[in-house]
């Protein structure tokens, strides 16, 4: 029922490659999602009605749509739009990996934008107004007053979102990218034992999530003096 250790060890390179792909997807999604989320969050909080409408709809759309639906829409639907296949974008989209990163990043950016916008909203107005009254420029106030406080407010939710990103990378196996789960499936097809590779993959995800949570806890501890008393 369970494969013997030697055969399984022979498949370790396959699993390791899948794990590397998963990690790469995680980092890219986190960073690119953040880059997209920042302007969207600012738009959502802005006083301009159009910007606010855009921010709200962006967040509603990408939080409400299933990740798999967005993935399939980008992967299968985009090449169908007339003109895409001839344009320079096609070079980018032909390979499934960039498509997956785009879809994952867009989905994550919806959640991240909500977190960032909420954190910025909850910065006490008094601090911002005091800095503005002291004569600091808008940029200075944002970088030195609002942003640090917002980071401390949003850190816990951001850590949760990072864990959700790791779990979200699993869907790329649907578009033939060799992540950890499809690597585990491949081992299953070769050894006819589904449980062992899935168990190993599960252990990897567990350790990754555990390490990530530890990292965010330490970050919270270092950034918030109140926790240190």
């Amino acid at each position, binding site marked *: 029922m369970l494969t013997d250790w030697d055969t399984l060890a022979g498949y370790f390179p396959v699993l390791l490659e899948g794990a590397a792909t998963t990690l790469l997807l995680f980092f890219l999604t986190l960073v690119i999602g953040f880059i997209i989320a920042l302007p969207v969050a600012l738009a959502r909080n802005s006083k301009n009605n159009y910007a606010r409408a855009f921010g709200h709809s962006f967040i509603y759309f990408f939080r409400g749509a299933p990740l798999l639906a967005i993935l399939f829409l980008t992967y299968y639907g985009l090449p169908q739009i007339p003109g895409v296949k001839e344009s320079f974008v096609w070079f980018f989209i032909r390979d499934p990996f960039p498509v997956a990163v785009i879809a994952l990043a867009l989905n994550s950016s919806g959640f991240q934008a909500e977190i960032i916008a909420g954190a910025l909203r909850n910065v006490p107005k008094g601090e911002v107004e005091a800095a503005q009254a002291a004569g600091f420029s808008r940029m200075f106030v944002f970088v030195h007053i609002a942003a640090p406080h917002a980071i401390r407010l949003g850190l816990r939710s951001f850590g949760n979102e990072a864990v959700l990103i790791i779990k979200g*990378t699993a869907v790329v196996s649907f578009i033939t990218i060799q992540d950890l789960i499809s690597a585990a499936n491949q081992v299953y097809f070769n050894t006819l034992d589904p449980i062992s590779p899935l168990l190993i993959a599960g252990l990897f995800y567990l350790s990754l999530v*555990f390490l990530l949570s530890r990292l965010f806890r330490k970050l919270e501890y270092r950034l918030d003096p109140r926790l240190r008393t």
Partner: protein
Amino acid sequence: MDFGLLEYGDGWGDELVLGLGITLGLAILAIVFGTAIGLFSALVERSKVRSLSGSVSAFNAVVRSLPELLIILFVYYGSSILMQAVLSPFGIEGFISISAFSAGVIALSLIHTSYASEVFRGAFAAVPTGPVEAARSLGLHPLQQFFLVQLPLAIRFAFPGLVNLSIVTLKTTPLVSAIGLQDLIRVAGDAGQNTREYLTFFILALVIYLLIAGLVMIAQFYLEKRLFQFMYARRS
């Protein structure tokens, strides 16, 4: 966009409706089981028996950390192996497996349970001690205290989190296409592959998911107003 594709019979309309039915059925069953077992699991986690509460906590933490696809695959493959192992001493050989739908329901319920139990834990912690102490001083039996005071209040505090979670579970259902279930996304994909009109069908599926999520959020708004009436009650 050719709407003829969506017709019943000739077009893909009936398959899409079937897919939607499977998606909704999966989601509703998972939400109902998941919430019920989640409540039970939260109660166990609050109990004084450390071994029970500890193991339930650990189990929930593990389930929350693993990708949903992994859990679905695990339940699907593992259940057949488990059943074969359990039934072979009785002489029942051969290949036994459970249907993909049942595996999907079990896996999704498991995931929903682990998050729901977190929501309920927070809800029970948020119940104010005033009414509970009042009930105790009135002489109510602990079980009465629980069912008449703590539980109704906890359910009200848990409500927004549970609705949020239900929407998340609805969005997790497309993953069951990995074990062969013909849910909405899978049908849309098949239809798209057949007609090469991927955009039409995937946008349609997306719109349907967004509509359902929107309807649930509207319903949540009106239900919350009624459920939280007690907080705005004034003495006349």
